[in-house]
């Protein structure tokens, strides 16, 4: 157990060192990812016609301020749940054969992917925390104020949950490459679905009936919509417990699915690829 922890720690440390090699690229990528946030704020301003003589007071129970607050909080969720390059990386490892080193060494490939991604995120937060704080400070007027303690706690739990669910879904898509070497179209489809179903584009309660009910039963909402809605105080304490339990359930299901697919995938690889 202790030995395994040490392996994970050294994997994390090595990945951190690796991530820090290309500083300029990383800083630039982080900066570029903030641009859409600014344009999105302008876009919502136009939709709510805030600068016209007849601005919309609210759309689907969201005021312009609510919408900006929702969007910014959803961005925090996405900072945890988005996994750039994860599935494509797995597919590349399979296609180019670099996965071999994980198969011949006594190391768990999924565990390695996980710690690699944790390192990726940690470095991202170090670089992104400054711009995030600035954006939130400039937009502080849009927020309704701090919710109560348990709600903040639920929000803080919802972020690692978003990370885990995002990681497990995308690594699963990557594992499909054991069967189909090229998964880029599949990843594109997932990105599109993710954009709609996670609440990245619009809050999920904006969807028409019965779609708005269905999407709430899917795991995607935990990637952006759920953390944002929690922080906006849209859940009661009792609902928070139910939701967080459901998120834990999804994590267990997705983890089991990943393990199953990896075991089957390696068998398939052994039979046909290599």
């Amino acid at each position, binding site marked *: 157990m202790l030995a395994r922890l040490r*392996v994970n720690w050294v994997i994390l440390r090595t990945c951190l060192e690796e991530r820090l090699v290309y500083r300029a690229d990383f800083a630039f990528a982080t900066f570029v990812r903030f641009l859409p946030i600014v344009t999105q704020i302008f876009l919502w301003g136009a939709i709510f016609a805030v600068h016209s003589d007849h601005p919309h007071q609210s759309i689907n129970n969201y005021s312009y301020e609510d919408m900006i607050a929702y969007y910014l909080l959803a961005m925090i969720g996405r900072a945890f749940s988005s996994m750039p390059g994860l599935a494509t990386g797995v597919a590349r490892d399979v296609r180019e054969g670099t996965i*071999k080193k994980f*198969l011949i060494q006594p190391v768990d490939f999924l565990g390695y992917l996980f710690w690699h991604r944790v390192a990726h995120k940690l470095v991202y937060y170090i670089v992104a925390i400054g711009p995030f704080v600035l954006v939130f400070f400039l937009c502080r007027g849009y927020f309704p104020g701090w919710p109560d303690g348990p709600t903040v706690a639920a929000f803080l739990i919802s972020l690692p949950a978003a990370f885990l669910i995002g990681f497990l879904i995308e690594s699963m898509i990557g594992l499909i490459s054991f069967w189909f070497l090229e998964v880029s179209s599949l990843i594109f489809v997932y990105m599109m679905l993710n954009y709609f179903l996670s609440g990245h584009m619009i809050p999920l309660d904006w969807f028409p009936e019965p779609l708005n009910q269905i999407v709430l039963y899917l795991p995607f909402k935990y990637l952006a919509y759920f953390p944002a809605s929690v922080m906006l105080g849209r859940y009661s304490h009792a609902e928070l417990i139910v939701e967080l339990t459901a998120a834990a359930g999804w994590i267990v299901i997705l983890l089991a699915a990943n393990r199953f697919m990896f075991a089957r995938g390696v068998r398939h690889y052994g*039979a*046909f690829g*290599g």
Partner: protein
Amino acid sequence: MIAIEADKLTKIYRVYRKREGLFASVAGLFHREFKEVHAVQEVSFRIDQGEMVAFLGPNGAGKTTTLKLLSGLIFPTAGSATVLGHIPWEREDSYRRRFSLVMGQKNQLWWDLPAQESFQLHKEIYRIDPADFRRRVDELTDLLQVRDLVGQPVRELSLGERMRMELIAALLHRPDVLLLDEPTIGLDVISQRRVQDFLRYYQGQQKLTVLLTSHYMKDVEALCKRAVIINEGEIKHDGPLEEIVDRFSTHKVVELQFAQAEIPADLADFGEVFDEKPPRVKLKVLRAQVPEVLSALLSRYAIEDVSVSDRPLEEVIAEMFVATKDAETEMSGTVGSVP
């Protein structure tokens, strides 16, 4: 004790057969033809602990597939194998801690980081005692003369330096079995020699069991006493290296240096002249006729120097592969021409 045992190991791949052209590509969307590739066919051999065996064959002969089977990356269509008492494709951690696979064309080291970071990671993955680890890194980096380079990012190393780092990473956990797939591919002569010297020394010292594939006969001759020759998935020879030349080479090379600058015109009567640099000449002579030819030559001409040698291993093996190919083409040709 037997370290590696393969018994009728067979691997058949099903590959998509694409016909030429755009039309065929479109047709391939709806219907695909597959063909079976017999990468390895009923291959059997045994390797004792501490033996260093060369695995030879032309490209596509099935060498790498066999190594992949033995390292548990793929599993066979039929047949069985055990390495150190383990079935490789069950991929137990207890097996994976006891062997290493080094592929000359694949990287195991972290590209952007210094090799020492990869070594540290291996230390944890293979649970190497810190004191042992320190000692082994020192020993191996000294032997391979890369001590000063362990702190440099791997991507900045030359191919030869990188390969030596790969070997160190593969040996840190003291594996009992080492599978080497073209470890000297693309290396310059000096790096090749360094790797060879190291492998010979280290294998002798550690009593490692090594199975090595290489296209460089120099590697093989320098390192292995025994060779398994595989072609088109089947074993063609398994035995001492020198036996290959005895068994498959019908000729010896007789090298003569004449006293006068001119080379006699009737040398072709004694054998095939294949290298002529007056006053020296090389003749290919049938093995059985060597004594006879030598005495005839010596009595007839003024010869200053003479030597008889076996043909280079490389040549003999190349000829062997061509011969099997020709024989097969001939056979299929005969079958094909029957009305």
